[in-house]
């Protein structure tokens, strides 16, 4: 290992390094999963461990002149990805779970390509779960018009034979699973209220965060970055969306790369990622759309989360039940079941199997400051 800076890490080992700053930082893991490493794309926060923002993931600050719709972003992204695949002379391997995000991706390709192009240029990677999650779409559309292959081989597809396209980052565009989690705990939870320290801390507590110091530090950090955001962060929903959009973005990108089959990990270079590994919703256009269109993310109930994407899917498949009742369901974890995983990946794309927190610790960090 040549680098002491990370792109992603399982944070269980890092939590073992006890000091007051890392304790404050670690408090967030009562709320989010341990395999998630947070990094501030707006570059305002210094984490207690060296985690660097991946080049190109820096927060967009200029939204001027942008007026594309979500649908236009989808159409442009299809063109861009098809052009990349054509250049590489490989098909697109589309990770399809049957959920809202990957259905939106597939619908975008179906709308843009002729039936012959769809069959030859896109391989839909799916399994039993994908069919069960959206059976109507499988039987009425995919089965009739797509080339399919099992998605359970996903981690072995990083060999340059496919341009892999996932549906990651749509969650970060639209909101946060944490809102669903809060509604599960408290059905009367009103995410449309203006956020306040008191409210956010009460939700942190609901997730199991305990230390007042830790909770206040996180609130201060998120709020500080939110106030410098190019868009307005007003409500509780906005607050949790911003946390997801800004801090979790990178971890979401790297989590599949971390689970690539061992013998293929040598293939993972910056050039390889640039060519062969893409998430449909990662583009700058989508990110700008997200910051400029808060009203299109959710209405007042959880089943309206991502309603704009669901409306666009409905326009295509006319499946009103899916539009009106489909709930967000994390499906990637089912593909990760039974998989071996290294502990981290450095900023040189080296896989880390044994992690010494001291090597990555940086004492001058944002969690060292005294907070309220």
């Amino acid at each position, binding site marked *: 290992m040549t680098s002491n800076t990370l792109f992603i890490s399982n944070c269980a080992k890092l939590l073992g390094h006890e000091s007051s700053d890392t304790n404050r930082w670690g408090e967030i893991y009562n709320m989010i*999963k*341990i*395999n*998630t490493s947070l990094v501030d794309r707006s570059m305002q926060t210094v984490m207690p461990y060296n985690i660097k923002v991946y080049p190109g993931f820096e927060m967009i600050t200029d939204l001027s002149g942008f007026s594309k719709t979500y649908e236009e972003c989808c159409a442009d992204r299809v063109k861009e990805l098809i052009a990349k695949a054509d250049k590489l002379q490989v098909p697109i391997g589309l990770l399809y779970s049957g959920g809202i995000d990957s259905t939106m991706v597939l619908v975008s390709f179906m709308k843009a390509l002729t039936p012959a192009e769809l069959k030859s240029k896109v391989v839909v990677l*799916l*399994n*039993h*779960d994908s069919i069960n999650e959206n059976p109507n779409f499988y039987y009425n559309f995919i*089965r*009739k018009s797509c*080339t*399919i*292959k*099992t998605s*359970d*081989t996903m981690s072995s597809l990083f060999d340059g034979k496919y341009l892999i396209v996932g549906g990651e980052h749509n969650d970060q565009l639209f909101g946060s699973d944490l809102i669903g989690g809060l509604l599960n705990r408290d059905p009367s939870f009103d995410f449309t209220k203006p956020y306040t320290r008191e409210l956010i801390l009460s939700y942190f507590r609901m997730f199991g965060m305990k230390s007042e110091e830790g909770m206040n530090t996180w609130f201060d950090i998120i709020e500080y970055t939110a106030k410098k955001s190019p868009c307005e962060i007003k409500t509780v929903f906005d607050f949790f969306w911003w946390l997801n959009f800004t801090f979790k973005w990178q971890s*979401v990108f790297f*989590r599949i790369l971390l*689970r690539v089959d061992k013998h293929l990990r040598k293939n993972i270079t910056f050039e390889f990622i640039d060519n062969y590994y893409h998430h449909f919703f990662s583009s700058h256009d989508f990110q700008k759309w997200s910051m400029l269109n808060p009203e299109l993310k959710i209405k007042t109930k959880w089943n309206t989360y991502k309603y704009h994407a669901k409306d666009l899917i409905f326009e295509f498949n006319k499946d009103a039940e899916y539009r009106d009742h489909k709930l967000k369901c*994390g499906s*990637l*974890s*089912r593909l*990760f*079941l*039974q*998989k*071996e*995983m290294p502990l981290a990946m450095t900023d040189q794309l080296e896989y880390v199997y044994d992690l010494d927190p001291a090597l990555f610790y940086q004492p001058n960090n944002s969690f060292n400051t005294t907070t309220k």
Partner: protein
Amino acid sequence: MAKFNTFAVLEIGTSALLYFAPTKLNANLVSAGTLNTLAVQYSTAVKWRENLFKGYDLSKDHLRVYKDGNNVLVKHLDPAVITPEFLAKKQLVTMRGEYLYALEMYTMAPIIRTADLLDPSVLPFITDQLGKAKPEEGYYPNAIQEYAFISGIETDTAYQELSMRVETVGLIRLRAQAIFDKYARMINIATTKAECSLALNKAHEERYMNALV
């Protein structure tokens, strides 16, 4: 009660009943981990064996199960056999058996995803048919053509769909088997609860914790 305890592990030589197993796999594994033992099945569900263990307290009694001609008989174990070594062996076998059963349940969990009319026993036949197909030449064996016809889909789609189903079932089961084998061996050489727990936790981590996102 005994109807549900038809799998057991016996000590060869003494015919002492060391352990009642909840599944045949569990009985087999416990036996594999302990020298001079045998995994057996007593069909207490059949009429002539339903009273085999009647009158015994299976949680306390030390029993001997043996054959006399065609009959299977159960008796209290000769007290001379119930030595501290025997009791320690019985305790060890029971401890491993319980952890192995927990491991079995853990590693079996992802297999629920593969529950399908496509029974695993049919996989070799389908794999054989898929192997005979030449998609690049448009050739598909009759079985695949029939599947396509009944399903009302193109033959190449039928080929891809069957490949997907077979691969998914195969991969999930193969991974489960590998994880199970690895940690079953760890449990079978463990001599303490702490060692068994460690193996179970590692299996849990490998099967589940890495999937948390």
